[in-house]
């Protein structure tokens, strides 16, 4: 099978007010993989995602997503480009003035000519995939934190995007929902061939779903490899993630 590179980052550097958050970040992400970006809080994981998505201007380095250099993305191509991406934001980012059903339906209503009934069926199917069918008529303010996350995930996958970005989707979920979420991610990968880029700290989840691990430390990619390699890695800070995360004793 041909290894398609979906994302390619070369020498990305990011400074916020003279504070160097990312010094020199380079990596590639292959189609059909679940790639987990790992790292301490504040290490710059969300910043990497936001740069891949073109939410921040790239100040130094090259960011390529789906064969498109983000820095040269033209405004008229933006819509087509973003329709291929599903994004799950760290805090959900649902529109508070719309019901969950309307939130999830929004991209379909805005970008397709599907009949309302089919749209509703699609929304219900996607909500069902995240186990949130009952929340169709509820407003975001009426949901718990974990339900909000699941609703946001349903919105992110409503257009069956080839690439899905998730920023800490598992945080605040109970273990059962978390396992269901992992199962869903795997289904999306295996049956739709979706490429998933995910920031998460949930070790149990990483062990279940990750194909590749990128470890961000001190503004660079400290580790880049498969899950198996990551577990055997001698890098102390990465080791801690797995031992502390699984409740194992540190030697």
């Amino acid at each position, binding site marked *: 099978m041909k290894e398609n590179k979906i994302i390619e980052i070369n020498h990305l550097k990011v400074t916020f007010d003279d504070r160097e958050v990312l010094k020199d970040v380079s990596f590639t992400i292959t189609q059909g993989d679940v790639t987990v970006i790992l790292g301490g809080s504040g290490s710059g994981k969300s910043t990497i995602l936001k740069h891949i998505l073109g939410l921040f201007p790239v100040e130094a380095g090259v960011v390529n997503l789906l064969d498109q250099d983000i820095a040269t993305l033209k405004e008229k191509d933006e819509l087509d480009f973003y329709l291929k991406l599903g994004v799950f934001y760290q805090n959900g980012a649902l529109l508070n003035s719309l019901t969950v059903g309307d939130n999830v339906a929004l991209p379909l209503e805005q970008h397709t000519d599907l009949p309302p009934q089919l749209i509703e069926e699609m929304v219900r199917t996607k909500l069902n995939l995240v186990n949130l069918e*009952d929340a169709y008529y509820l*407003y975001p303010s*009426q949901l718990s934190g974990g339900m909000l996350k699941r609703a946001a995930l349903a919105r992110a996958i409503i257009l069956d995007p080839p690439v899905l970005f998730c920023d800490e989707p598992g945080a605040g979920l109970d273990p059962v929902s978390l396992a269901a979420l992992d199962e869903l991610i795997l289904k999306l990968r295996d049956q739709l061939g979706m490429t998933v880029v995910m920031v998460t700290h949930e070790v149990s989840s990483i062990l279940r779903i990750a194909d590749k691990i990128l470890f961000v430390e001190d503004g660079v990619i400290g580790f880049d490899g498969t899950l198996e390699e990551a577990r055997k890695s001698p890098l102390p800070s990465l080791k801690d993630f797995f031992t502390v995360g699984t409740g194992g004793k540190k030697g």
Partner: protein
Amino acid sequence: MKQKNIHTSQYFNLEGSTIYVSGPLNIYNSSGFLHDAETFFRSNPGTGFSLNLSGVTRLDSAGALALHSLQKTAQQHNITLNIEDTTEEISNKLELFRPVENKTVAPGKKEPLFYRLGDSAVHIFNEYIVTFFYLVSDILFWSVKDVFNSKQRRRGEFLNQAVSIGVNALPIVASMAFIIGLVLALQSSSQLRNFGANIYIVDLTVIAMMAEMGPLITAILVAGRSGSAIAAEIATMKVTSELDALKTMGLNPLRFVVIPKIYGSLITLPFLTILASISGIAGGALAAYLYLDITPEIFFNRMPEALYQKDILTGLIKSIVFALIIVVTGAFFGFKVEEGAEGVGRSTTSSVVAAITLVIIADSILGLMFY
């Protein structure tokens, strides 16, 4: 007229009783596909078909659900539609994206009209009137009790509020009152001149400003400036759980947030009102000088005769009542906020409308009482 019409279409091809579906099926063409299907089945009546999906190149969730929907519609018209010859990929997708039973019901709209009317009357009574009076009594209780007990307030907060509600409103209140005093005198001047009663412009301006316009202009402007700010502040605090945080830190949100605003407005609004009245009278004096040839000297000589203690008192009492109304309605709508950012916006709007309405109602009641 019967017409045998073999429908050729983009997506369907009929061979015997097998329908060959071809092309991609996704969010962008599923609408056209379903439309096509309807025409196809209309022109090819029958009771049983096989649906051959070997020609489907790309299927996404919309396409999968469109196929399910096609099968269901066919069933409703007593047409059996067996899906055959699918790749594993496609049958997996058909399995992953199958329509779910609709278990949730859309809220509301079902009850009879009178039931709903009665319900909302009770609701309004409980939600608004009862809680409003609870809030008023709480506020009155704590504002009296806390006068000499500043433990539950942040130090200097009362002064901050006095400045932001009262002092900062001074320029706008004074200039608006001046303009209204001027216009009021101007409008009356031609009538007075007809009767040769020029000098009564003084009485008219002074009484109107002192007892009526001064307090009213002040209250309406303060309601717009500070009433809305109070509602927005409290509503935001509630939405972001700051009020809960205060409570669990052992601080009464009402005493901590609202009472300083009550003091700040009770102290400053009477002064603001008097200044507004004076400024309005000055405006009247200017109009009198310009249009009725009454010099400022004559105007101010006449003033003591027009200035009744009762009018000054009426103005002051009104300003105190208005101050309470503005802060209490602001706080009320702030505490009543529904979750979410646009809840804050709604609370703010409601608080301004309600405050101005209540101010005008109170003004007419007090006006009648002190007539």
